[in-house]
């Protein structure tokens, strides 16, 4: 049958045209998203943007999307309190406002100080996790899809392993992940609504039936942050599912305190199980804390590192039936990096790196991480490298298909140089003496285009 109605289309455009398009984002001057903020003092900030409702003639923001964002933030935050030095902020826009003002590609550059507009930006080297998503309602069902980006400001997520004087660099396959679409019954949304009512309320005591008052807006929280009581909260302590917070009343300017019911906010059903991405986000907090600790020459406490690894594994368990292989691979890579930096469980870390490769065998970053970790650990323990030929072959392939060709070529060259230090009889014919030298010379002749 001939199509009789076509919906409006969308186009993927090359770079320059977007510069023109960005001018059309409209008035953002009175919207909270237009003045995003994080806790400068916090080592890691979680920022949750409202879920955008789609399916109409135009995407829109409604109560459900904004409330879902609040629940995601509160639930995640309540599960990661033990890490310390964390901030969490939920962005909002007034009802009926243009949702484009809350697009991640608009908000994130502000938070990183790349474009003006943020009240407080993330500091260099500190972690930032941004969560956003889309929401579709139909009859009794609601379908959502979440996305997340993680980073440390002005800091590469690459990491290095060394063999003697030779450095090998790798990085996660992606710092942006798409989670599988999830469906809820509206009855569950009603429970979210109820939990929103509870989470949006500060009690005098950690009991649901104690007196209290609604949370002041904007809703943001920070733990172990110094001198940052407004516009968010400072978390004093947590007791089970309850968080003890204090804040400055925006009208009286007096300090206030109370309890928020956060974790396990859905009656009879864990939000983490309904939304496996919360496990990923919680693991991601641990990953960033580990990377920040490593920068200081420190490591995350072992129990916390294991907790973060467990969150990633839990995410994969709940996500196994979906087609989100890339996201599962990133989860495995981040868990592997935590374990590799901890240094206690080499075999476990290698299994996690290899698990990522088995999910995305063509991904050059996954292949690199698995291979450079393996050779560095073999060298560390036995001063030897097995599978020299297949490793050289894989690193050569990575060098020809990686988007970071400089890093990939450096890894290959360093590997060949390491092989030159091995006894010649331990190497296969194709990698011995003059053959190795010719390969290194071939790499040295390469000039990458400047693009």
């Amino acid at each position, binding site marked *: 049958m001939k199509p009789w109605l076509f919906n*409006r289309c969308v*186009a993927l*455009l*090359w770079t320059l045209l977007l510069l023109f398009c960005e001018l059309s984002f409209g008035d953002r001057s009175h919207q909270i998203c237009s003045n995003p903020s994080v806790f400068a003092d916090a080592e890691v900030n979680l920022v949750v943007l409202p879920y955008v409702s789609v399916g109409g003639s135009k995407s829109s923001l409604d109560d459900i999307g904004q409330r879902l964002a609040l629940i995601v933030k509160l639930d995640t935050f309540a599960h990661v309190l033990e890490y310390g030095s964390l901030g969490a902020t939920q962005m909002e826009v007034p009802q009926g406002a243009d949702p484009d003002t809350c697009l991640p590609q608009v908000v994130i550059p502000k938070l990183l100080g790349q474009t003006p507009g943020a009240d407080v930006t993330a500091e260099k080297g500190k972690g930032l996790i941004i969560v956003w998503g889309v929401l579709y309602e139909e009859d009794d069902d609601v379908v959502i899809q979440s996305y997340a980006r993680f980073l440390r400001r002005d800091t590469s997520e690459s990491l290095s392993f060394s063999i003697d004087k030779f450095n090998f660099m790798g990085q996660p396959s992606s710092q942006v992940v798409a989670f599988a679409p999830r469906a809820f019954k509206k009855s569950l949304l009603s429970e979210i609504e109820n939990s929103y009512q509870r989470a949006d309320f500060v009690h005098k005591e950690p009991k649901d039936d104690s007196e209290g008052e609604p949370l002041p807006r904007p809703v943001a929280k920070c733990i172990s942050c110094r001198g940052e009581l407004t516009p968010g909260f400072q978390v004093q302590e947590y007791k089970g599912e309850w968080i003890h917070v204090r804040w400055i009343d925006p009208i009286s300017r007096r300090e206030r305190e109370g309890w928020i019911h956060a974790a396990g906010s859905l009656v009879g059903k864990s939000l983490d199980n309904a939304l496996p991405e919360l496990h990923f986000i919680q693991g991601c907090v641990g990953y960033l804390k580990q990377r920040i600790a490593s920068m200081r020459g420190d490591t995350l406490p072992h129990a916390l590192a294991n907790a973060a690894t467990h969150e990633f594994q839990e995410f994969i368990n709940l996500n196994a039936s979906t087609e989100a292989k890339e996201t599962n691979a990133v989860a495995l890579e981040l868990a592997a990096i935590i374990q590799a930096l901890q240094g206690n469980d080499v075999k476990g870390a290698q299994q996690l790196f290899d698990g990522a490769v088995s999910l995305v065998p063509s991904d050059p970053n996954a292949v690199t991480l698995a291979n450079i970790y393996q050779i560095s650990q073999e060298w560390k323990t036995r001063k030897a490298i097995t599978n020299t030929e297949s490793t050289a072959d894989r690193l050569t392939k990575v060098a020809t*298909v990686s988007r970071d060709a400089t890093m990939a070529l450096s890894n290959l060259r360093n590997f060949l140089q390491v092989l030159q230090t091995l006894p010649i009889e331990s190497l296969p014919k194709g990698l011995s003496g003059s053959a190795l030298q010719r390969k290194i010379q071939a790499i040295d002749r390469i*000039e990458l285009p400047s693009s």
Partner: protein
Amino acid sequence: MPAKPALQKQTSGLRDFIVENLRTMSRGRAFVIPCRGRFPQDATEYTDGEFDSLDNLRVLLEVWGSVDDPVGGRGSLGFVLVPARSVAPPALFVVRRSGRDFLSQAQQGAVLEMFAPIAIGIHDYQNRKFEDAVPNLCEGINKLQDSVNSSRLANDLAALEEQNKLLIAVRRVVSDAIRQARSDSRSRYQLVSPGSDGQFPCPFAGGAR
């Protein structure tokens, strides 16, 4: 006969899920914008002239949703890979909505992001940026291969055939991109050798374990 509002909403919602996926997973390599007010009347509208016009506007990929059968509740999603017109004509891919509900359709829709790296890669190839083209083309080929191998197209033989044709065409483009890159003695593609058939496959064709 007008489409049921529910069906129209569902098709729009599915398109918006796919668009958000494209927006996010293109990771700054390209940008996604809604073409407000643009309503393609028919697939036959995509003539050579229309492709030229889209190309001049620097459009790589156009996505639309359509309601094919307002009574039966069928719809489809169309993808126009503008740079692919010369290598895999007509470069128009229509995927019929399948699956018992919106969730299963949205889950299937996520894989359609494969069209983005292919469009970007062919664009680079046509602009003789061979070194940039290969990583995108190979990413697209691997995802397209996954799509063709999966069971999700089992009931949509037309889409399966279209995607198979595209796969063959893009493999030819990759081989030629590597061959052309190798004409420069300083290219990193000097590190690879052709297969027994003289063609250059993607380096990780079939994966690496």
